[in-house]
């Protein structure tokens, strides 16, 4: 249910590690979790006895189409707690059992589709990646700040997507390799460099946390700049395209708007070092334009 502690396997590990896996299997985290699980199963009768263990959720409600609900308010839900329950699980429970009009986006439930970023207890988080047990009660769930609310927890993402599209978030090059069937290979070092930036799931948590993006509607925002970084730093695109991308990045509402509040880096559920990437692009832009003669 929870995806919080799961590290994406195979993505970062080197071959040596997988070879070692058999040796340390007996003491591996998986084995430990399995042992703990067995332990829990024995305890479970006791757990059912204290089933009354509920979590108190305060959920933002707003519906422009129903006369009584046009004034935003908070609804209280008391959701019975199961081990490993995430905020998204609790919302789904509340919707299915208590109020079927409760509206929110979600899909994958494993932190990969990026549709359920909410403002939970004062911070932008993915509902499916946030354990209830990590939060203080009452758990306050609100739609993402700085975006217009369409209904309940659903915000209008259109502007965010526009900004993402504005940096041309797709691979393009005019330096094709010789030979028709030749592949475009990337060096390992270059992949390491852009690896973190490829992990973005377009959840808009960072964008919502950014004060500058809130005040300047044209600012590209952290996610879009990170996308631009992902391609600008990709050596396979070649020099021409790099210049093209730098022009987008260093325009007035591009990287220079960032004032290093670090809010985006704090909230990114994929742990992308956004501020670092923006700062690196700023330095690239300076190097690009500074000529000594």
């Amino acid at each position, binding site marked *: 249910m929870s995806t919080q502690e799961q590290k994406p396997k195979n993505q970062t590990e080197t071959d040596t590690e997988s070879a070692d896996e058999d040796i340390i299997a007996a003491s591996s985290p998986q084995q430990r979790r399995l042992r703990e699980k067995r332990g829990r199963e024995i305890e479970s009768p006791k757990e059912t006895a204290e089933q009354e263990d509920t979590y108190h959720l305060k959920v933002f409600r*707003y519906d*422009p*189409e129903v006369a009584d609900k046009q004034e*935003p308010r908070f609804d209280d839900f008391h959701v019975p707690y199961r081990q490993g329950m995430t905020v998204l699980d609790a919302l789904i429970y509340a919707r299915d059992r208590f109020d079927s009009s409760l509206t929110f986006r979600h899909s994958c439930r494993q932190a990969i589709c990026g549709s359920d970023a909410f403002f939970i207890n*004062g*911070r932008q988080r993915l509902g499916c990646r946030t354990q209830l047990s990590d939060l203080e009660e009452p758990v306050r769930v609100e739609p993402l*700040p*700085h975006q*217009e*609310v*369409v*209904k309940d927890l659903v915000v*209008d993402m259109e502007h965010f997507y526009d900004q993402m599209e504005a940096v041309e978030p797709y691979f393009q090059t005019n330096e094709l390799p010789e030979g028709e069937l030749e592949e475009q290979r990337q060096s390992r070092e270059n992949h390491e460099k852009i690896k973190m930036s490829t992990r973005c799931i377009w959840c808009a948590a960072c964008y919502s946390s950014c*004060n500058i993006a*809130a005040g300047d509607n044209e600012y590209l925002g952290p996610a879009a700049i990170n996308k631009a970084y992902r391609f600008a730093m990709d050596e396979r695109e070649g020099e021409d395209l790099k210049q093209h991308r730098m022009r987008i990045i260093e325009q007035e509402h591009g990287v220079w708007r960032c*004032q*290093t*509040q*670090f*809010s985006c*880096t*704090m909230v990114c559920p994929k742990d992308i*070092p956004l*501020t*670092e990437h923006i*700062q*690196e692009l*700023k*330095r690239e832009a300076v190097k690009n334009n500074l000529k000594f003669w």
Partner: protein
Amino acid sequence: MSQSYNRGLVEDFGRWREFSAGMWAWIFHKFTGWVLVGYLFTHIAVLSTALSGEILYTETIRALESLLIVRILEVGLLAVAVFHILNGLRLLLVDLGIGLEAQDKSFYASLVLTGAIVVASVPTFVAGVF
């Protein structure tokens, strides 16, 4: 699409309790910057009394320095300037891409250092008004 609801300012500074270190650093930096700009004008005003003669200038400075409130404001000015300098150095490092993981710690460090310097300066500033 149906009309949507904009929550306005509530979601900005009404949330100050939830701000993180980097955000506070940004706010303080802006604030101290504006205070320093404001001080610059009073500074120029006081200094330009020298245009009407040495005596007037000396008298103005003496009169100002004998007021307790001015002494207290001077301590405040020092606090503001020191923080702005230290956080400026921090931002310089951030711009150079050095120690971005420690940005919150360097903010706390500049706060503590500012506090220490200000406390240490109090005797010097208030000497002679009482």
